[in-house]
């Protein structure tokens, strides 16, 4: 039944470029990228109970690697993408070893610190990263010779990757490993006594989340054709975390809704109000007060109450 309900949604998403203007297509592309990013963070926050405030590291580093390899060293997009994702995943493995020495607040602080180091490097190592000027003049890849320069073609490419990401992460959390992960989130001590290795389960999830964060980063740099140190900033990490929590952490759809909300507020509200961050804060406060578990769980609870 739930799959049947997804068919009209899929149809609308696929057909979007036929009835929407370029502005909205581009907005949708950005939402899809933010959604992949939020979903990858949700693996940690929602399913693993690991609240990270440094997830932008994976987005930013993947984007920078791809940007540097293609613009500075003239690599092709295919190999650059492979290197970028492999590098980002390896970095997640390394950062995971450091951050998973702690849980809870300690974990959060370590992820924050690590991402700050990268952000600082992106700013200061200007001979490599071009510092505050960022790296401009990048190109989009041409998979199978198809140009992605139009809003519609990029959107479809984006949609394919996002669907794959959504599916792969949904399979991951509903697998028996996913059950192990949720168990470790809820009762780590008990899970260890039952024979599960909590550290290893968390570490594998951390790496997997880093991988998909990297995929989001690649799409991000393809879309913008530009990369700046702010993509590695704490604000960038915090916005994603806000989206995950507002939408509903630990649900497959929540982070998508949350990421869309944050992005829409950013794009629309910033046109009218200069301090759009304040508005985002107020909206977030409202959500937390009315639906403490997030929009998606909150609404489905309301729906169930109504239909009863």
């Amino acid at each position, binding site marked *: 039944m739930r799959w049947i309900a997804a068919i009209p949604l899929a149809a609308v998403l696929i057909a979007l470029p036929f009835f929407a203007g370029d502005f909205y297509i581009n907005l949708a592309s950005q939402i899809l990228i933010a959604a992949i990013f939020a979903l990858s963070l949700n693996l940690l926050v929602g399913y693993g109970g690991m609240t990270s405030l440094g997830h932008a590291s994976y987005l930013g580093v993947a984007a920078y690697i791809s940007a540097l390899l293609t613009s500075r060293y003239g690599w092709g997009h295919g190999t650059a993408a492979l290197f970028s994702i492999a590098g980002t995943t390896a970095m997640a493995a390394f950062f995971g070893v450091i951050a998973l020495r702690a849980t809870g607040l300690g974990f959060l602080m370590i992820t924050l610190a690590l991402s700050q180091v990268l952000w600082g490097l992106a700013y200061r190592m200007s001979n490599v990263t071009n510092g505050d000027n960022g790296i401009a003049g990048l190109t989009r890849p041409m998979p199978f010779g198809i140009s992605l320069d139009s809003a519609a073609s990029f959107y479809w490419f984006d949609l394919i990757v996002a669907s794959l990401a959504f599916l792969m992460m949904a399979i991951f959390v509903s*697998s028996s490993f996913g059950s192990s992960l949720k168990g470790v989130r809820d009762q780590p001590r008990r*899970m260890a006594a039952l024979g599960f290795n909590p550290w290893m389960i968390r570490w594998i999830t951390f790496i997997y989340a880093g991988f998909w964060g990297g995929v989001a980063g690649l799409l991000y740099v393809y879309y913008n054709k530009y990369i700046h140190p702010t993509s590695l900033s704490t604000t960038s990490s915090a916005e994603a975390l806000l989206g995950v929590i507002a939408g509903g952490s630990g649900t497959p759809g929540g982070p998508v809704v949350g990421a869309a909300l944050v992005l829409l507020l950013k794009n629309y509200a910033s046109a009218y109000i200069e301090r759009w961050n304040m508005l985002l804060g107020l909206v977030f406060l409202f959500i937390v007060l009315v639906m403490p578990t997030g929009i998606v769980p909150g609404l489905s609870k309301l729906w169930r109450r109504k239909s009863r």
Partner: protein
Amino acid sequence: MTAAASDHALEVIGLRKAFGGLAVTQNVSLAIRRGERRLIIGPNGAGKTTLFNQISGDMRPNSGQIKLFGADVTSFASYQRAHLGLSRTYQIITLFSGDTLEHNVTLGLLGLRPSRWQMWRPLSFYGNLATEARRTLDAVGLLHLADHPVSDIAYGEKRRVELAMALAQKPRVLLLDEPLAGLSDTERTTVKSLIGSISRETAVIMIEHDMDTALDLAETVTLLNYGRVIVDGERDIVIADERTREVYLGV
């Protein structure tokens, strides 16, 4: 020597643990044979649960040794000890309250199987786990509640789920931390006969305050007080011992 060592399911040798200046385990040594039924008694704060926590690996001792079937496991993590056949229940219920009873027991089964690492097949793919979980729930008399979340069931039933999770693992050494606490008389009888029916392959070590019930199940008794072993031996001898009366029975 090796033959003698392997006769023992669990050996604790000169275990010491202190929280700051407070010594909670002081030179504790125990030897438990395969299939033995051991009751650990002692007043509140005697260090019974702390001893369990060290045996199960939740807590590291300051010094001393823990051996499972002759193998030194002192530096092993809890999950490694679980794979050597050690299982435990908790005094304070630690279940997965949002999940069904079946899922709780299934996690117990999954923990010892390689499929816990499986990343693309859903848990429901392993139908034999669910069947096995339901069989165990049936054994503790909770099959009718298998599809209910743990948060919906009564306290006494939760205690039995705790027991079911441990039993499902078919452990060779089972640590039961106050399995009868907070149970009604009827539940007490059920759990008692359940513990009584545990396979003789399994050594059962039990902390329990309900002496009437627990003594029936025990073959040997260890009395702890202030983190020390006061008396240790055959049930009737320990119970008759003057020091037991002094410390525990308050005579």
